[in-house]
């Protein structure tokens, strides 16, 4: 049973793991949040990967990535359209594209989901992407790197890749650099029993207990809803 009785507010960072859990463990029952507004929001966001039916300007509901990459183009287009390209097309679409590409390149997912929500009152957007694949450490392990989950995340951010080619392994690090230094935002990465959280002043790493681990990878970002163009090239020249 998933008990949300005490939940007063939901963000993409909590909705996406919940959505994966309910899709993969169909026997689970859900006790919904008490507020009708929060309940409605939850059903609206999680309903059947419903991007075809929902077309509001402040959010992108949970969207599933197809296994066939060729079919992902219209979904990416929808993500870009609904998210509104804060920081400009170049920077925003770079981040989404690199994160989605990482999932296809490395995760071997059964389920992969993306979701975004604008919070106009706070002036920011949460963008979250999740998969239930082999984790970052699992991917690096396949190329002979045996690392704890938290260390694997740090190494992947700094350029480690299961694809042993020069210039590979830049997607996560450049996206993080862009998020933190380009947008002035913050980023959370959870993979297996590891997690890292970074914002302007704080870079923290965590080792999660069995109870708190996530069997897959979640990346969540908070970025300001800036109309100013973020300089993509300054922050990806790495």
């Amino acid at each position, binding site marked *: 049973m998933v008990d949300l009785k005490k939940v007063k507010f939901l963000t993409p960072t909590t909705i996406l793991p919940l959505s994966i859990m309910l899709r993969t463990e169909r026997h689970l029952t859900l006790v919904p949040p008490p507020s009708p507004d929060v309940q409605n929001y939850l059903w609206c966001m999680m309903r059947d990967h419903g991007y075809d039916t929902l077309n509001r300007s402040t959010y992108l509901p949970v969207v599933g990535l197809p296994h066939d*990459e*060729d079919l*992902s*183009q219209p979904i*990416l*287009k929808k993500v*870009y359209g609904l998210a509104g390209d804060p920081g400009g*097309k*170049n920077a925003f*679409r*770079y981040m*989404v*594209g*690199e994160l*989605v*590409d990482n999932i*296809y*390149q490395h995760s071997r997912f059964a389920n992969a989901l993306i979701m975004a929500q604008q919070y106009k009152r706070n002036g920011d957007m949460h963008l979250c992407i999740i998969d239930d694949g082999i984790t970052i450490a699992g991917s690096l392990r396949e190329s002979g790197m045996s690392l704890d989950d*938290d260390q694997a995340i*740090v190494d992947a*951010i*700094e*350029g480690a890749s299961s694809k042993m080619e020069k*210039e*590979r*392994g*830049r*997607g996560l*690090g*450049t996206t*993080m*650099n862009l998020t933190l230094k380009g947008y002035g935002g913050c980023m959370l990465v959870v993979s297996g029993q590891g*997690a*890292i959280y*970074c914002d302007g002043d704080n*870079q*923290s*790493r*965590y*080792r*999660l*207990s069995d109870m*708190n681990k996530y069997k897959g990878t979640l990346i969540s970002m908070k970025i300001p809803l800036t109309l100013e163009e973020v300089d*993509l*090239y300054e922050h*990806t*020249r*790495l």
Partner: protein
Amino acid sequence: MSTQGCRISIAHELSPDLALRDIASSFMDKVESLRCPEIVIDFCEVETITRSFAHEYVTRKERSSLRINEVNVPDNIDRMFKVIHNSEKKPRFEGLRQSRTIIL
């Protein structure tokens, strides 16, 4: 693949937003399968490109025996190709590397 002679509009063929590495790889497979010694890739209407897409495109082009040239490359796309050719170093997040692991 929509070609005029051996000129290919990559935006029409794929998308104005060039994002995924494997899509770049499949595109280059199709380019290689054309029976033209010289191929022009038209970047007109391309709006954005990721580093992964650009890297795959450049790598495959360099390995190809065909002559592949680009035309109508927008400035922002050209800048990403330059990033690929002039990358400085891998990213370092010293604060993260040196931070103490917190058990949760």
